């Protein structure tokens, strides 16, 4: 079973302390909701897991593989991710993006990309430029790319942004399917979107995280569920700076 461990990680940018995580273990397969207010350090933490940011202290590991500059390539093979969309995608066609992803992940490209696109509800030509797609369609495409290599850990930063109601339902179903034997870490500001999908939650505020709690326990402990867990943690955190 894949286990993602985050041990005593700190991260500062300039003179500002951004993260101070004690110990987080994502042990069981499931969907972990990472919730917190704006600027709490959610994206920073996810970027640290993907090696996009280098931690000042502590280590991040998947099973026995500790993330470092030497192991980064192997680490990234185990991760699928959707972050905020960059404009480098806009000048690519759908086919070019998928070609690149399949090539670098060592996958055999199919004859046609349409089944992969249809899987995320995209009925568009593979030759269409990504810049011509709507925000929601691009989000679906990025999800298709992120899950295409069947990653052991799927990291989704605000995956419901720009999605229409059908898109939200479809994305949730895809995430649920993927989480059956994998770890999914998901951030969203919409508790409504998270509530009916996540199995566990962790709150992050001022760069510090709560313990990971199952959604069943949260509902038992707090009358208003995830919202109660969220508020109880952010009210007791002290700023790092």
């Amino acid at each position, binding site marked *: 079973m894949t286990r993602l461990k985050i041990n005593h990680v700190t991260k500062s940018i300039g003179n500002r302390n951004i993260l101070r995580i004690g110990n987080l273990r994502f042990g069981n397969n499931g969907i972990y909701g990472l919730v917190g207010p704006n600027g709490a350090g959610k994206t920073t933490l996810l*970027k640290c897991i993907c090696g996009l940011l280098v931690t000042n202290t502590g280590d991040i590991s998947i099973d026995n593989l500790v993330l470092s*500059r030497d192991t980064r390539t192997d680490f990234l093979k185990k991760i699928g991710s959707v972050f905020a969309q960059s404009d480098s995608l806009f000048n690519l066609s759908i086919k070019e993006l998928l070609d690149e992803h399949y090539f670098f992940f060592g996958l055999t490209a199919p004859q046609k990309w349409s089944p992969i696109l249809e899987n995320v509800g995209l009925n568009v030509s593979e030759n269409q430029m990504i810049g011509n797609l709507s925000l929601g369609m691009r989000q679906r495409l990025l999800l298709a790319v992120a899950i295409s290599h069947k990653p052991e850990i799927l990291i989704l930063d605000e995956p419901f942004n720009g999605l229409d109601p059908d898109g939200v339902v479809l994305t949730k179903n895809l995430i649920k399917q993927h989480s059956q034997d994998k770890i999914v870490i998901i951030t969203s500001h919409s508790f409504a979107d998270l509530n009916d999908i996540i199995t566990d939650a962790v709150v992050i505020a001022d760069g510090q995280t709560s313990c990971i709690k199952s959604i069943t326990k949260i509902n038992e402990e707090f009358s208003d569920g995830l919202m109660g867990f969220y508020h109880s943690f952010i009210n007791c955190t002290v700023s790092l700076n």
Partner: protein
Amino acid sequence: MEYFDFEFSHMKKMLLPLGLTTGGLQLLFLYFFAIVGRFDTEDGSSMLTHYNAVLALATIGTMCVLAIYGTVLAGRYLVHDYVGMNKSKTYLLPISRKALFYTKTKAFTASLSLAMAVGLLVSNLTFMTTDVIVPLTKDQSFTHILNIIVSTIVCICLTLTVVLFSSFIGIKLDSAVKGITASIIFVVFLSNLAAIALMSYELVSLLIAVALIVIATMVCISMGNEIDKSEAL
């Protein structure tokens, strides 16, 4: 090699426009300077009536335009992947960042050099042949092949140097536009010096051009190391 082929296949689409631009510009500059030379009777040395001077000036003219055009293309095919939020997409690929940067740079360099070499050789040979049939310069003959080869190598090396240095500045300053600005500044500084050197000291200019490429390669290696350590904020 597999990665190189993949990157090169993406950059192939710039070969034709780049080759045609190179060839067209070089022919235009060659005929322009040769025709100006025929009407230039005031200059005591009649510099522009000599084949080598016409070739040198035309080559530097082409180099100036291509250095800027090449930097624009580098902005699209190379710098773009290493600036702003685009870095995340590049850094998430499961390949050594350094190796990927070197492969992209090599593929871009190969594409630019190939297109320029073909464009310059075809246009220079065309001009040399027509100059023998319809003389525009005083010393027309088929024996200028060596000059053509040297000027082609110098032009490619200088263009690559400007394009690579400008691209590295663009990556360092996190902006493709700043890279293009740098290329314009480089061209302004380099063009006069290069023209004088190529007209008077061909061998020296060849050595300097090759030395600049060696320096650009060393800067590229250091840039790769920096990219390997960098973060995508």
